[in-house]
């Protein structure tokens, strides 16, 4: 990794320690969204925040080597499609849009409440990756503006 991009060494080390906890807690909030408080939206924003922390600490190039902006927007579309498919399959199986076509299971079990966990995962992919891609777009725009300003003055 390049030492000159991003923030200081202290921030980078703390990011290395924190990033795993952030991702695991985001996944926990999503997967247990139908048992404890949480759900797809806060979990997705938390995962997006983990990637934004990486972007702020290590610079844009390191994060884009893991998930580029184009890949993030593709995952975003796939999440929206997954959420839409849950509704369409329910329409064909049960006759109603977003019919809960999977078994209800036992309460307090992770595989309970039917399609809710699939919908949560779809919303997570959608929200998390779209917010991360928007942050990347904002960061790119800022860099383009700051790099081009002195050139325009030179002309």
């Amino acid at each position, binding site marked *: 990794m390049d030492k000159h991009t991003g923030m200081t060494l202290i921030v980078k080390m703390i990011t290395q320690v924190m990033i795993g906890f952030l991702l695991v807690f985001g996944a926990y*909030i999503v997967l247990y*969204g*139908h*048992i*404890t*408080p*949480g*759900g*797809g*939206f*806060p979990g997705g*924003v*938390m995962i*997006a*925040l983990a990637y*934004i922390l990486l972007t*702020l600490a290590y610079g844009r190039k390191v994060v884009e080597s893991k998930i580029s902006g184009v890949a993030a*927007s593709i995952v*975003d579309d796939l999440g*929206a499609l997954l*959420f*839409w498919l849950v*509704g369409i399959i329910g329409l064909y199986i049960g006759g109603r*849009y*977003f019919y*809960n076509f999977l078994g*209800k*299971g*036992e*309460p*307090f079990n992770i595989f*309970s*409440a*039917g*399609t*809710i966990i699939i*919908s*949560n995962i779809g*919303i997570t992919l*959608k*929200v998390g990756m*779209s*917010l991360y*891609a*928007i*942050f990347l*777009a*904002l*960061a*790119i*725009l*800022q860099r*383009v503006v700051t790099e*081009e300003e002195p050139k325009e003055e030179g002309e």
Partner: protein
Amino acid sequence: MENLIILHILLVFMIIGAIITIEIRNMLSAVIAVGAVGFMLSVQFLFLGAPDIAITQVIVEILSLIILIRATINVDNVAIERKEEIIFSNRITLIFIGVILIFAWTAFHALPTFGEPSMRVSQFYLIHGLQEVGATNFVTSVILDFRAYDTFGEAVVLFTSISGAFAILRRWKKEQHKDFLRIDREH
């Protein structure tokens, strides 16, 4: 009753934070005051018994704070001068807020008392939610099973807004803009 006292104390602090946000000269301090208001709002949601909304409020507040700090950290701290036009518009705003408050005072009497469920639908969700859906978190069972169509509408709204933001922020727009500038200079 203790919860109500805590709620009122938090409300007073939120109003103080909002006034600091408007009045302070330093942009970074104003952004941090906005963050303080948001965190107090999330604590209020916790005391009202809505942990789902509290989690969402905290996390979205952090995201918006990061974007606001990145947007304002390079901006010079330019304080808005108080001109006569601004004072005039402030007076007009105050008059309209007063009119709205007078009508709202009569409307507030028609609301149910604080903490009482206003809809019979919510009681149906609480009674039949566990049998019909199987989720122990009733908020999730409402937004992703009983009212999943509304959530899908929200997802569509988010998708459309993200697409619009990408259309504005895309990279080649700047280069095309430079081409336009070059054409203007040649003519």
